[in-house]
C-alpha cells in the first residue's frame, strides 16, 4: 500500500487522487506497486533490465496509460527503460512522471529512459511531470531520456513540466519524424535555490511535410542555472520552429542555444529566444490592483508557466 507521502507525490506528478482508470503501472521505491492492463493496452516487465514494455494495439482510441514513479526512500538510484509500442491509427494519452521525496542524506536519482515508436497516423499526447520535495541534505536528481520515432502521418504532443524541487536534471530528448509527422513540445520549468536544469532537444525532420514546434517557457530564480539547447535538423521539405522564453530573477543564470540545420532547400526553420527579468510596469500594474510586490511576482510567474 502507498503511504501518505507516496500518495502526495502521485497527486503532484499525475493528478492522481485514486487509482487511475485504464492501463497503469505504478512504481514505488524501485518496486512494482500496482499494474493494470486493458484489452488494448498491455504492460510487460522487461526481463534483461529494469523497465517495462507497453504495447498499444492498432486502432486504440481514447485510452490512457499512467506510469508514475515515486521515490520516498533516501539514497535510491535507478535507471528504468520503458518502451512504448504504439500501433497504427491510435489516439492515446500517456502520463508519466517522477516524484521524489528525499528527507535523508543520500542522493536520490531516477533516470527514466523512454522510447516511443509511434505507428502510422497515430496521435499521442504525452505528459511528463517532475516534482521533488523533502528537506534532507540528499539531492533529488532526475535525468530523463526520451526518444521518439514517429512514423508517417503521426502526431505527438509532449508536455514536459518540472516546477521546483528537483536539484539536478539533464533532460535529453531525441525525435525523428517521417513523412507528414507532427511534433509539438511544450516545456515548462521553474528552478530555484542552487538547482541546475539542462534540456537538450534534438528534432530530426526526415520526411516531406513533417513539422516540429518546440517551445520552452522557464523561470530561473535565486542561484539556479538553466541551459536550453534545441536543435532542429531539416532533412526534407519541412517546417520547424523552436522558442525559448525565459524569466530570470535574482542571481540566476540562463543559457539558451537554439540551433537550426537545414539540409534541404525547402526546409523552413525558425528560432526565437528571449530572456529577461519581470518588467517593472507589470509589477506596478498589479500593485495598482492592491497586490504586494511579492504577490505580483508570484502572479506573473504563475501566469507565465501556466
Amino acid at each position, binding site marked *: 500500500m502507498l503511504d501518505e507521502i507516496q500518495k502526495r507525490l502521485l497527486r503532484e506528478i499525475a493528478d492522481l487522487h485514486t487509482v487511475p482508470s485504464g492501463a497503469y503501472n505504478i512504481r514505488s521505491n524501485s518496486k512494482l506497486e500496482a499494474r493494470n492492463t486493458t484489452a488494448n493496452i498491455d504492460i510487460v516487465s522487461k526481463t534483461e533490465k529494469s523497465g517495462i514494455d507497453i504495447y498499444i494495439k492498432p486502432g486504440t482510441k481514447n485510452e490512457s496509460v499512467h506510469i508514475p514513479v515515486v521515490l520516498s526512500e533516501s539514497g535510491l538510484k535507478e535507471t528504468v527503460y520503458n518502451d512504448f509500442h504504439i500501433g497504427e491509427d491510435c489516439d492515446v494519452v500517456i502520463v508519466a512522471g517522477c516524484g521524489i521525496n528525499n528527507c535523508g542524506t543520500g542522493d536520490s536519482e531516477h533516470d527514466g529512459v523512454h522510447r516511443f515508436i509511434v505507428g502510422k497516423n497515430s496521435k499521442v499526447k504525452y505528459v511528463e511531470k517532475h516534482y521533488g520535495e523533502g528537506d534532507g541534505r540528499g539531492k533529488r536528481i532526475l535525468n530523463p531520456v526520451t526518444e521518439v520515432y514517429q512514423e508517417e502521418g503521426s502526431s505527438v504532443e509532449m508536455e514536459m513540466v518540472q516546477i521546483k524541487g528537483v536539484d539536478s536534471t539533464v533532460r535529453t530528448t531525441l525525435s525523428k519524424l517521417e513523412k507528414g509527422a507532427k511534433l509539438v513540445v511544450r516545456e515548462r520549468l521553474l528552478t530555484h535555490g542552487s538547482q541546475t536544469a539542462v534540456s537538450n532537444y534534438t528534432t530530426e525532420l526526415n520526411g516531406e511535410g513533417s513539422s516540429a514546434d518546440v517551445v520552452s517557457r522557464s523561470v530561473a530564480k535565486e542561484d539556479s542555472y538553466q541551459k536550453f539547447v534545441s536543435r532542429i535538423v531539416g532533412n526534407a521539405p519541412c517546417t520547424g520552429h523552436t522558442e525559448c522564453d525565459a524569466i530570470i530573477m535574482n542571481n540566476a543564470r540562463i543559457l539558451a542555444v537554439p540551433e537550426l540545420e537545414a539540409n534541404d532547400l525547402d526546409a523552413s526553420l525558425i528560432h526565437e529566444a528571449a530572456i529577461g527579468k519581470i518588467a517593472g*510596469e507589470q509589477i*506596478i500594474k498589479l500593485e495598482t490592483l492592491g497586490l504586494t510586490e511579492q504577490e505580483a511576482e508570484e502572479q506573473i510567474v504563475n501566469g507565465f508557466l501556466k
Partner: protein
Amino acid sequence: MLELKNLSFKVIDETGNEKTIIDDVSFTVKDDSFVVITGPNGSGKSTLARLIMGIEKPSAGRIFFDGEDITDKSITERANMGISFALQQPVKFKGIQVIDLLRLAAKKNLTVSQACEYLSFVGLCARDYVNREVNASLSGGELKRIEIATLLARNTKLSVFDEPEAGIDLWSFQSLNRVFENMRMDTKGSILIISHQERILNIADEIIILSGGKIIQSGAKDDILPSLLKDSTQAACSVLEGRA
C-alpha cells in the same frame, strides 16, 4: 475626496540640472465628481497622475485621500484604500488571461458571467475575450478597454485614467467615449481623467488646465470649456490638440 497640497516634483536631467516637472500644484477632487486634467504634451499631466497613485514620489507637498495623508504610502496601500489607476500604456502579461486579471482586480473569484459583464460594459464581446491572454495578440484598443474593465471590477472611490485615448484607433476612441459617458451615469465614486479630447472634456464637472507643471486655469466645465474652445490663439488650439 482627494486633495493635493502644494505638490512639486523635480528631477535631475541628463545635463545635471534640476528640472521642475510639477510646480506647486494644489487642487481637490470632490466625492462623486468627474474631473478632467488637460494641457499640452510635456505639461506634467501624466506625472501628476503617477504621483497620485504613488508610482512617483513628490519632491514637496502632501497628498490626502479622505482626509488621510497618503504621501508616504506605497502603491499597494493606496490601491487598497480605494484608488485605481489606468495606465496610459496598458501592460501585457504572457500567460495571464483576461479573466485572471479581472479576478485579481475584483479580489474575488468572479464567475465567467460576472467577468463578462465588465467586458460588455467596455464594448468587448465578452465570450471572445474572457479566456484570451493579456499579451501582444491584443490590439492597443482592446488592451485599453480591458484596462478600463479592471477599474470597473475594482469599483473604488477614485479612478484615475491617464490618457485613455492614447494609442487607439478612431473607432475605438468613439466607443471609449461612450464608455466614459456610461461610467459617468452608472458608477459611484470620483473619476479623474487626463485627456486632450474635447468629447471627454465635455462630460466633465470640472476642468483643470496644466501648463509647464502649473495650473493655469481651473473651474467648472461651463466656465472653462467655452473659452478653451472659442479661444483661437495658437496656445489654446495646441492644448486641445495635444500639441505643445
